[in-house]
């Protein structure tokens, strides 16, 4: 009796472990993996990234080169390990040949490292924007059509110094590679213009209590540069407001994004008038942008205006599909032809022309914005000006730019 039951256990174990590996093979579909943060502190951001990617899929009617697109989702929690685990599942189990994602800075660097071990799979970045994802030790099969965090800051440092008149600025940012990159982009211009940054506070992702950070901000600063995302930004801003903080703010790209601007609470007074820069501007009135906003709003639970995550995933997914059409959906050679087509791809997005440099990083337009209230009382980013075709070295000569060193807590510095 006990033998048969044990045999049953073994059999059920066996079938349980093996059965899911039998996957349905269909010739006329292309599988695309979609990797975003559907858990953890950046969940809201990840969900908007998904809406952006699905906007692109629906724009093409769910087809590329006559083949159906099958989108398979993978979830991470913004830690590099979880991103690699999710990517591994999509590539090795689901068999995707194209993967769009991930969302966050260090995830991008980790997935790039993983990409090197999967030369036949094409990785197209979602919204992760750390500099070294493409700038140092790039992977041949990793493409970024969405520009990096330093590029997003183009024009902001100069604007803050010359037009806003801020001479000293304190920095509050999350402690990982994307905010390093953003601070680098901001300070590159701000310090060059003559500004100083006496204090930088690096806080862990998911931090809840900012009282010690707020207390550490020097009194004499003209403004605070805040590069926090999602729930972190909301927590910091509301605690800063509650503690009676008066200094004006300068926003990182994701700090005054729609994911934060739509949050409830008394953030309005703190946020209105905050300058920021990024790849999108809500009041952009070009017909391409308006058309994109309309298409985006058809997605479930969409924000009044797409966040930069929706925008970045939209561009990544659109590039993936355009590349597929270019090669007629042919990925049979391990995707070599496809990647060649992607590298040469140049197309018009809702925010202007995008093309790639030699490291497969995007060259695109960047928008300088300021937070205002629109007619319906929603907070939006008003477009101040467009900085056209910003490249990864921010217009600096590449050798000189490389000599500035890798972004980190300490680099750059101008106390």
């Amino acid at each position: 009796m006990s033998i048969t039951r044990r045999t049953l256990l073994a059999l059920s174990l066996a079938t349980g472990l093996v059965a899911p590996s039998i996957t349905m093979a269909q010739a006329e579909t292309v599988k695309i993996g979609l990797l975003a943060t559907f858990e953890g502190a950046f969940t809201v951001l990840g969900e908007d990234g998904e809406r952006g990617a699905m906007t692109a899929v629906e724009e093409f009617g769910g087809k590329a080169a006559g083949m159906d697109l099958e989108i398979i989702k993978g979830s991470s929690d913004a830690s590099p390990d979880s991103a690699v685990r999710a990517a591994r599942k999509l590539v090795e189990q689901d068999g995707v040949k194209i993967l769009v994602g991930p969302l966050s800075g260090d995830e991008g660097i980790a997935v790039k490292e993983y990409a090197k071990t999967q030369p036949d799979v094409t990785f197209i970045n979602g919204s992760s924007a750390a500099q070294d994802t493409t700038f140092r030790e790039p992977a041949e099969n990793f493409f970024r059509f969405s520009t990096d965090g330093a590029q997003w800051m183009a024009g902001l440092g100069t604007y803050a110094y010359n037009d806003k008149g801020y001479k000293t600025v304190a920095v509050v940012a999350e402690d990982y590679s994307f905010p390093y990159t953003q601070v680098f982009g901001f300070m590159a211009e701000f310090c060059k213009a003559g500004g100083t940054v006496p204090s930088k506070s690096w806080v862990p992702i998911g931090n809840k209590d900012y009282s010690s950070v707020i207390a550490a901000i020097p009194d004499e600063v003209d403004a605070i540069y805040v590069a926090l995302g999602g729930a972190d930004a909301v927590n910091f801003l509301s605690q800063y407001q509650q503690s009676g903080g008066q200094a004006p703010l300068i926003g990182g790209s994701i700090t005054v994004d729609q994911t934060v601007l739509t949050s409830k609470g008394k953030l309005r007074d703190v946020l209105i008038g905050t300058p920021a820069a990024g790849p999108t501007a809500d009041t952009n009135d070009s017909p391409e942008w308006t058309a994109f906003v309309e298409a985006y709003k058809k997605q479930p639970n969409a924000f009044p205006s797409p966040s930069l995550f929706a925008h970045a995933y939209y561009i990544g997914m659109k590039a993936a599909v355009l590349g597929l059409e270019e090669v007629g959906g042919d990925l049979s050679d391990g995707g070599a032809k496809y990647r060649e087509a992607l590298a040469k791809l140049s197309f018009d997005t809702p925010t202007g022309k995008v093309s790639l440099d030699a490291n497969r990083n995007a060259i695109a337009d960047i928008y300088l914005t300021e937070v205002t209230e629109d007619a319906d009382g929603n907070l939006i980013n008003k477009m101040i000006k467009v900085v056209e075709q910003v490249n990864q070295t921010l217009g600096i000569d590449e050798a000189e730019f490389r000599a500035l060193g890798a972004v980190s807590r300490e680099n750059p510095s101008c106390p």
Partner: protein
Amino acid sequence: MSNVAFSETGPARKNWVERLGIGHILLALFLLIYPLIASDFFLTTIGGYSMVLGMIALSLMLLAGYGGMVSLAQMTIAGIAAYVIAIFGENNSNVHGFGWPWWIAAPLGIFLAAVFSALFGWIAVRTEGIYTIMITLAIATAAFYFAQQNYTLFNGFPGYSGLRAPEAFGVYWREPVPFYYLCLSCAVIAYAAVLYGSRSTFGLTLQAIRDNPRRMRAIGYDVTAHKVFAWFLAGIIAGTAGVLLAWFNGRISPGTISVGPAINILIIAIIGGLRHPIGPFVGAVVVVLMQTFAIDIVGAERFNTLIGLFFLVIVFISPDGILGLWDRFKPAPDRDSWHSRPDGTGV
């Protein structure tokens, strides 16, 4: 209660099939031929990873099942070994990476993990029950934030990447099949060691201390020393798993040792069952399968809810986890010697 365990070896000697138990033999056969039927993904990301998590949960089962000490710091202990591999072995993060060969770095990692485990245990043994959980949770949380914010030793949020499994005896041990067998042998050794250890003098003493520490102290046993040594042994198992984890992921970052994964280990042990060393491995397979495939069943928005509900149902139906379910439908208890459970009555 320990009489049962002793008397088993007394009467007529059993042949090796009976001593091992038919279940073990079938399971071993299945695990040995598993690479023939499984894809690479099922070999490493499900099979290997389950065994690594199973070993970490086994170290918790050892402490909780035999010692009555529920620890939330087992993932941290595994993480220590993984960080040692990263710091003393090779990495491509350009921080530390002394390039020591694996046969020094890996044993060093396991040893340091065991030492830290003993240290944690030494702090925690002065407490009991819920307070042990609180102290180990505090240790795990502190270690996580320290690793995340310290750049000189732990390289902060990104941690270390580019960790490579060794190429030894002409085999690259991160290839799917070698890695699977590597995990399998480590898991089997740990499993057998815990089974054997539970019937050793030390194991029985530990169980007696769990049941009545005051009486054991009264008859002259050093209760603290026994408990701390149990932590040391658990540290060896968790440390070994930590080394495998570093080779499996090829990287280590604070995300691996954060509070979520630490609690995950407890979930694995509870889901599987704390009464027998096979429990943590069963739990690990179930949890890994759920966490990998739940997103395909209900989509990206609600998959964590499904995982939570599933675990809730298991614990609701059977407080002893999956092992408890198994017991419930089992007609007669067989008492062959390899099947003792923590209270020595046989499963």
